């Protein structure tokens, strides 16, 4: 499965990779993206106005808090169609051809920027001071934790788990802590609302058992990735058993691997990963 593959139900961590690839290509010309975004100058009044406009005109599809509805969730730091603020402005102003996203002809530019600012706020965690040491955390990530076996940071590492290159922008410290201590407690969803990295177990009619992460699923078929990152394709009517292990994760808990101070260090490192390459 290539990074540009965009299944309609579930994509695990892959959408981030493709979105960042898109970001990279858009940044190359270095024109609009380098200009200062009007969002950076917005006041809290602008943000409140943006929220009201969003709730009145966008929420019917994108959900009242931007978590998605018939339209995709926007509460994420990287939006595939809007890698930078100017692109987000254009998407709102002009709509997206071939989709349900209409042009917002009814808003003036200032209002569109207010909505764009609010949308950006949905997907950004604030940068806060954390107790741990990022440099120590980086070392733990690379050595004792063996995190790079399954995770990519800045293009390096294994691809079973989510790419962590911008995890600090997407997730707060509390979420990072619970992922390290109890990975199965993740409430992460993709933009269609499907549980990310859901563990499923199947038994085929001939008795073969596979346990792995759901890559994609529809009424008739299922694609899984096992702990060795091998991809399987099944027709559901060929399966004797099919179960969802909600609350499970292929990631081990680090509760007993790291001391509390080490956990703080690792969180500080992960929180520092905000998309820089």
């Amino acid at each position, binding site marked *: 499965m290539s990074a540009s593959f965009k299944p309609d139900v579930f994509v695990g961590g892959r959408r981030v990779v493709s979105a960042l690839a898109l970001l990279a290509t858009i940044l190359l010309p270095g024109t609009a993206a380098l200009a200062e975004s009007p969002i950076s100058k917005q006041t809290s009044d602008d943000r409140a106005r943006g929220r009201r406009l969003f*709730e009145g005109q966008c929420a*019917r599809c994108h959900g009242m808090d931007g978590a998605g509805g018939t339209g995709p969730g926007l509460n994420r730091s990287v939006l595939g169609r809007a890698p930078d603020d100017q692109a987000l402005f254009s998407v709102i102003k002009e709509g997206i051809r*071939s*989709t349900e996203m209409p042009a917002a002809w009814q808003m003036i530019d200032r209002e569109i920027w207010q909505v764009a600012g609010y949308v950006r706020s949905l997907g950004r965690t604030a940068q806060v001071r954390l107790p741990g040491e990022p440099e120590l955390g980086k070392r733990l990530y690379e050595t004792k934790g063996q995190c790079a076996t399954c995770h990519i940071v800045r293009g390096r590492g294994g691809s079973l788990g989510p790419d962590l290159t911008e995890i600090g922008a997407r997730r707060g410290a509390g979420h990072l802590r619970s992922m390290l201590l109890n990975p199965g407690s993740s409430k992460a*969803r993709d933009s269609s*609302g*499907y549980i990310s990295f859901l563990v499923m177990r199947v038994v085929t009619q001939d008795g073969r058992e596979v346990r792995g992460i759901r890559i994609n699923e529809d009424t008739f078929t299922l694609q899984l990735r096992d702990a060795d990152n091998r991809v399987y394709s099944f027709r559901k009517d060929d399966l004797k058993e099919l179960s969802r292990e909600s609350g499970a994760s292929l990631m081990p808990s680090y509760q007993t691997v790291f001391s509390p101070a080490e956990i703080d260090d690792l969180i500080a490192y992960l929180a520092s990963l905000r998309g820089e390459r």
Partner: protein
Amino acid sequence: MRSVGLLFCLLAPCGLFAQVSYERILRAESESENWLTYSGSFRSQRFSALKQITSENVAKLRPVWVYQIKEPGLIETTPLVVDGVMYLTEPPSSVTALDIRSGRPLWKWSRTMPRDVRALGFPPVNRGVALLGETVFVGTLDGHLVALDSKSGAVRWDKVIADNAVGYAITGAPLAINDKIIVGTSGGEAGIRGFLDAYDAKTGERAWRFWTIPGPGEPGHETWAGDSWKTGAGATWVTGSYDPDLNLLYWGIGNPGPDWNGDARAGDNLYTCSVVALDAATGKLKWHFQFTPHDTHDWDSNQIPVLLEGMVAGRQRKLLATANRNAFYYLLDRETGEFLIGSQYARQTWAKGLDKRGRPILIPNMDPSIEGTLAYPSLQGATNWFSPSYSPLTRLFYVPVREMGAHYFKGEAKYVPGKEFMAGGEQALLGDEAYGAIRALDVLTGKLKWEFRLQSPLWSGVLSTAGGLVFGGTNEGSLFALDAETGKPLWDFQTGGPVRSNPISFTVDGRQHVATAAGFSIFAFALP
């Protein structure tokens, strides 16, 4: 050349571009080689009497051709087929005629939309055309009803019937009845005052207009507080049904506006969330039945009214069956509008049930609120615009179901002409918390006979056939066939794009085909 011409005539006895007389549409159910009107016939059963494709051989069904839509956008068209030609719409409001043997285009008509064309609260789609005589009728997003020459796509007449500047638009397929074209509009999220119109098919002159919200002095006006009736919505955006013997037209009416805050429109808000029976000659109201009085969840009642006959409460009756967006299935006497049977067919948390007149017995505090109120079904309903099907052979009513809840939020809205007028919103419970299903209900009792569960809440209608099959499609791109008696899946095909359309069936040179839109394409299937 003569022998080729002769052969062609033998293959297609009426020839390409034949007349679609009103008599042919009246008898559409006995002309199953074609698909002459949106729901297959005036009774809207979406049932095909064709039976070459059966539960025994459907597993061999293969694509014959694929036509790729040239315009970007969502494809919700139900194609019509007559005498070798398929007529379909492409977004936003274009019409294409295809050769059904090859899938090759014969002509295309496009209308350039104004840049500020308004599609408020819905995607810019079109669900299909009506045929009558040698004319194709289509409604456009910017509020025109256009008559096209069926041989060339040339415009015969073009009438502005609704003001897009204040939010009216046309997305539904018109219905051709006798010498009239019946057409409704969208705009339920824009504070319109809804109407249903009839136009002279030859001249485009308006024959009548039925306002879905009664004006001052008319019965039902008292169900609207103050001036709220002026912006009360009640759109008519999905094609209705017709009983030629009673000369009654049955049409579903949309939600009241603003959608999620009913404070300023105290009362039942007639005739929103109702089905109305209109005299087809005059547009005068014969009866109405309101499914959801004073709706605050955006549960339009535009779902297809399906007409059939049956023995209920001790006598043979003319019936109207419909599965409503509010999660209840209803059986009405279509001569009088009398409520006969109502039963829940999907999860709902807003009503304890229906009283003996069919009015919902409300559960308190299920209205939208500032902090959000969790209710089932979601604003898109337990079903929506896509068509159900009824098989007179199995006596089962097949409903495409959306099992999904939502947190409903109440907001404020000030009416501004041409802007959205909704006052709130929802946060739907998506992904693994939602699912879809095809449910087969006993048509006379509403009792569940079987269910086929689907990955996600549907956006596609169903077709049942005399071959004992039910065809449908999924958001994840599968077209499928189920055993009409048991719901067992017998065939599926991955099209690569979400299915948001209604399947149809017809023949090409005597060979049964099934066709539907999926993704950006029309797919036609047949046995090898």
